């Protein structure tokens, strides 16, 4: 078997393969390191960080729905300083990219975190403009093109790492949002975050989630995610990272054909802790089977029906 090159370069962020664990699904990698070799991951987007530690929302925080889950964790995390002190040294033992996902209540929060993390030993920053689960709602920054362009532009001034802007699907026109991120100076965009949803217990007549609403993820969202990734990729020149319900290498390849330069995998990790390794191997096998030279022979190679 010839050596399959699945390396990708995303705005200066070099990944050994295009498979990244999605923020919120993988903690800081510690727990999963008992089940898999973290060296085999393209990257890890860590649990969403805030300036100060956050306790998150009341439980229940999860509800299973057809082919998916709703979650409302509400960004429980130890804060950016504890991340730098306690988690980066652990993650750096492995040969994989570290992406710091950040969320804030104010533009100043985001800028301050970007500044702090620019001096930390990480490889990229992912701007979470799309968490649907906090009261203050960082999603508020992500739902209008002006909001996205403006916050991206502000954060960019403080950010010395490649800046990935993570987009919410809870918008009317994803193309305008992606363009706004690019115009604001994003080095890449990642999408989709979860779709706002709800589940009801008919016996108690109450929502299952304590927070009433939550973010839908898993295979149920895949067709919507794929369409949005395609639309975004046709509109921007910066790389697109695709996610939404990816559970297999075939799913990942669909996103790459639609224009994603890399993919993120979230919900599937819960059922199969080593699934990202299988997905990365499966992509390599696909490239070999079709006699392609490298990963760039797949990215954006979708041919639409006429």
């Amino acid at each position, binding site marked *: 078997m010839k050596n399959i090159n699945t390396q990708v370069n995303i705005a200066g962020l070099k990944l050994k393969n295009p498979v990244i664990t999605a923020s919120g699904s993988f*903690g800081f990698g510690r727990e999963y390191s008992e089940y898999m070799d973290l060296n085999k991951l393209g990257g890890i987007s860590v649990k969403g960080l805030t300036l100060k530690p956050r306790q998150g929302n009341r439980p229940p925080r999860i509800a299973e729905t057809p082919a998916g889950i709703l979650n409302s964790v509400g960004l429980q995390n130890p804060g950016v300083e504890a991340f730098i002190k306690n988690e980066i040294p652990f993650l750096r033992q492995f040969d994989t990219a570290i992406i710091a996902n950040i969320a804030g209540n104010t533009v100043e929060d985001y800028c301050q975190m970007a500044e702090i993390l620019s001096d930390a030993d990480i490889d990229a920053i992912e701007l979470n403009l799309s968490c649907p689960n906090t009261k203050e709602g960082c999603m508020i920054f992500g739902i209008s093109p002006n909001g996205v362009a403006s916050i991206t532009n502000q954060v960019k001034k403080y950010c010395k790492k490649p800046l990935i802007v993570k987009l919410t699907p809870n918008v009317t026109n994803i193309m305008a949002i992606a363009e706004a991120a690019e115009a604001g100076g994003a080095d890449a965009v990642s999408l989709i975050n979860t779709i706002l949803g709800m589940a009801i217990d008919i016996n108690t007549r109450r929502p299952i989630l304590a927070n009433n609403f939550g973010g839908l993820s898993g295979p149920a969202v895949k067709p919507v995610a794929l369409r949005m990734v395609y639309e975004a990729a046709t509109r921007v020149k910066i790389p697109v990272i695709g996610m939404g319900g990816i559970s297999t290498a075939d799913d990942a390849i669909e996103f790459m054909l639609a224009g994603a330069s890399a993919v993120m995998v979230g919900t599937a990790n819960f059922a199969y802790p080593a699934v990202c390794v299988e997905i990365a191997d499966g992509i390599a096998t696909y490239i070999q089977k079709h006699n392609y030279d490298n990963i760039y022979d797949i990215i954006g190679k979708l041919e639409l029906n006429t």
Partner: protein
Amino acid sequence: MPKVLREKIKRIENIAPGIFLMNIESGYIAENAKPGQFVNIKCCEGLNALLRRPISICRVDRSEGTFDIVFQVKGTGTEFLCRKQAGETVDLIGPLGNSFDIDDKYENIAVVGGGIGIFPLLFLLNEKKATKKTAFLGFRNKELIVLRKEFEQASDKLNISTDDGSEGYNGLITDLLEKDIVQAGYDMIYTCGPTPMIKKVCNIADSSSIKCQVSLEQRMGCGIGACLVCACKTKYGDDWEYSHVCKDGPVFSSSEVIFE
């Protein structure tokens, strides 16, 4: 250390309405599991019941390399699980979570279980070396009483209550514990079951200054401590924090849990 395992089902039995006992061949779980721990089971392939289902370990047989789980059919996942046949394999991760403190220094213990929360307590009774072991088990009705013989064998005294009085004491199992608590001289109480019951047990234990450990339940995602969905409130100095049932628990000391 927990592992992802594919193990063979040796036996599956419908032991009460909607309740199934599954005996699974697994030298690894039998050897390594401690009372209070659970396995996280992928009940079916494909897109149904996406998440694994956490189920407590009820019994291990180290000589034959098997363990038992007992579960109630409650939704899609357990619906699939109960239809599995002997000889089929089951995909599980385990043993997960922390375990009950069964140190030899506790010599006179009580276990208090309600409904489908009783199962980890059987494992505990079988593993615990103590001079005196008393079991209190509460059920909705006579039909739902399961593993009675096993609990009788594993304890010195078994007390049973039912909500409708169809068997044993007519009322809450915590009434029996409360009556017994002064003269019994327990040095440790372990409990698992519905929240109102475990809350009451913790209150009874605390007011008699008896140590108490409680096994909690919460909707889980990953089961390994990464996704942070199975939050429960615990004391943190003068403040509180959200701990996680799957990794920090499922067993907590009654003095650290904050019931909402």
